[in-house]
């Protein structure tokens, strides 16, 4: 099965593992504080309409993040 390489492109409901974060220091720190760290399993629950944010689940936490920011999160292929 092919798994896409960025969180923003991940299909709904498919678990994937975070590879790395290509974000500037501030965003990176916030993502890590909310549990988006390399090695963690992440899942996209839904996408808001009108190019709105993603609803994701990582560890024991559910988050919303914008697609632009989700593009910074690389997944392990």
């Amino acid at each position: 099965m092919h798994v896409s390489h960025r969180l923003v492109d991940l299909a709904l409901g498919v678990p994937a593992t975070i590879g790395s974060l290509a974000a500037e220091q501030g965003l990176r720190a916030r993502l890590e504080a909310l549990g988006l760290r390399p090695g963690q399993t992440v899942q996209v629950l839904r996408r808001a309409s009108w190019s709105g944010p993603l609803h994701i689940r990582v560890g024991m936490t559910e988050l919303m993040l914008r697609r632009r920011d989700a593009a910074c999160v690389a997944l392990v292929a």
Partner: protein
Amino acid sequence: MTTLALVGMPNTGKSTLFNRLTGSHAHIGNWPGLTVELMQAELILAGLPLQLVDLPGIYDLRGHTGDEAVVRRFLEATPVDLMVVVLNASQLDRQLRLALQIQRLGLPALVVLNMADEARRFGVQVDPDVLAAALGLPVVLVSAKYGRGLETVREAVERALAGRADVPGPVPLQHLEARLVAVDGELEAAQRALVQAAVRLPQQWRDRWTRRLDAVLLHPVLGLPLFFGAMALMFQLIYAIGVPLQEGLGTLLDLVGQQALKPLLAPLPPFVSGFLLEGLYQGIGTVSAFLPVIALFFLAMGVVEDSGYLSRAAYLMDAFMERLGLDGRSFVLSLMGFGCNVPAILGTRVMRDPALRLLSMLIIPFSLCSARLNVFLFMAAAFFAPRQGALVIFGLYLTSFVAAVLTALLFRGRFPSQEPLVLELPPYRLPTVPQMLTRAWLEVRHFWFWARRFIIVGVVAVWLLNNLPLGVEPASAQSLSGLLGTALAPLLNPIGINPKLTVALVFGFIAKEIVLGGLAVIYGQADPQALSRAIVADVSWAQALSFMVFTLLYTPCLSTVAVIRSESKKLGFTALSVGWSLGLAWISSFVLYQGLVRLGMA
């Protein structure tokens, strides 16, 4: 005095724990060296006087938001005897990091794992003893919301402080940044080891309710209509309960004034008794009659916020807000602004990008706050039949929304930002009744505390302007207020605002709570019914509408201006905010009033 500070991430129930520990003794305190106000309370624990400070919710001591900087400055300026680190027990897989940062700084600390009830519901198992041994810090498991485990928190605090009795007094932290950077590399591995040793996470996500509710409430098509429907219902409910309460209270206060106070004050000279009864008592009475509506509003907003629905609103609205140069948080803060603008503007501290903060601060004052609502409910009831009145109120809410959107569109080019947006969507929670009542009580008290000095000074000033120089007929053209109204007439005549309404508007600049109290003083009528008859006899409904639109759009109050000034730290920006809202108010009222006149409706 011994100082304890509560620190923790957002959504950990930190404030609930604070309220539980302090009862209702909390007050807003100013800290030396910090230009922000923090909630604090004095309490006695085992015969020891303590002060407990509630620090803002933060994700990371090294973070870049205003709140995170506040916590760092606090730690550098204040010697703390004990840090109480509050963590969400079901999210230790990422929250232990904050406890580790505090531990590595060598601060005396107690770790409170809150929301134990939720952790159990989700199948998360935590062993506090193992965690305590590994961290070298005391750890207690509690559920602040249901009041479980509070005794163990008090005991743990006592023990921790007793153990420090022989240690010389605490010193403020130095070189905080450098020390945090030095330990940063080891935190990740340490957190993983702790979780492995002390926490068992469930294989399957167990919160079926949240999943099912989200499927409906975050639905791509139904989500937004459901949200606005829920909000409309909430406002309807507030009016349905609040307005009769307010009318009853107003009549009661008037009765007390006429039957009890008037005879009591009769022996005094007319100027003094008039000042006390018609100035002070009537002014304050008209304002206090509206406290029930305000309390209900805070209660309802508290329920929406604590249930987790407010964060969903940020998710639903973000795509729209992004096109305005804002984000989902700006929407949520504007919504909070419908209660009171001041805390909403303080809430922009969670934003990191100054441009985004400023743009949010520019739109929040257009949120129709409860103080303005008082004026509108009164005027709508006086001038229109119930059905039309409801439509007028709805129109004002719509105007408030349009003004905010227009402002964002006009100014987004001046305040461009690229701030990322990552927010937690907490599980849905059922707020408990005592928790909600405590919260609403604290907010109303805080609101009253903010507003009362302005209200008292304001109504007194209005009365004096109306009755000076001595011997003048109250509120006549010869009185000071009459002179002020006449002086401003060339500016306000074209929008249908007469000299009496002008005085109310001028004082409304201080606080909208004064507008009604001021009108009561200007028209010399305390009873709400009599006051509305007097105003209806004096101005047309088109003038009343223009007055309402102006009241909605111009500067909300002096407190808001002050907080914009202190939060933006820019005088120019504060002037822009005041100037733009005044300009927009005048133009909108002008278009509305002249339009109605041209159409022959006024």
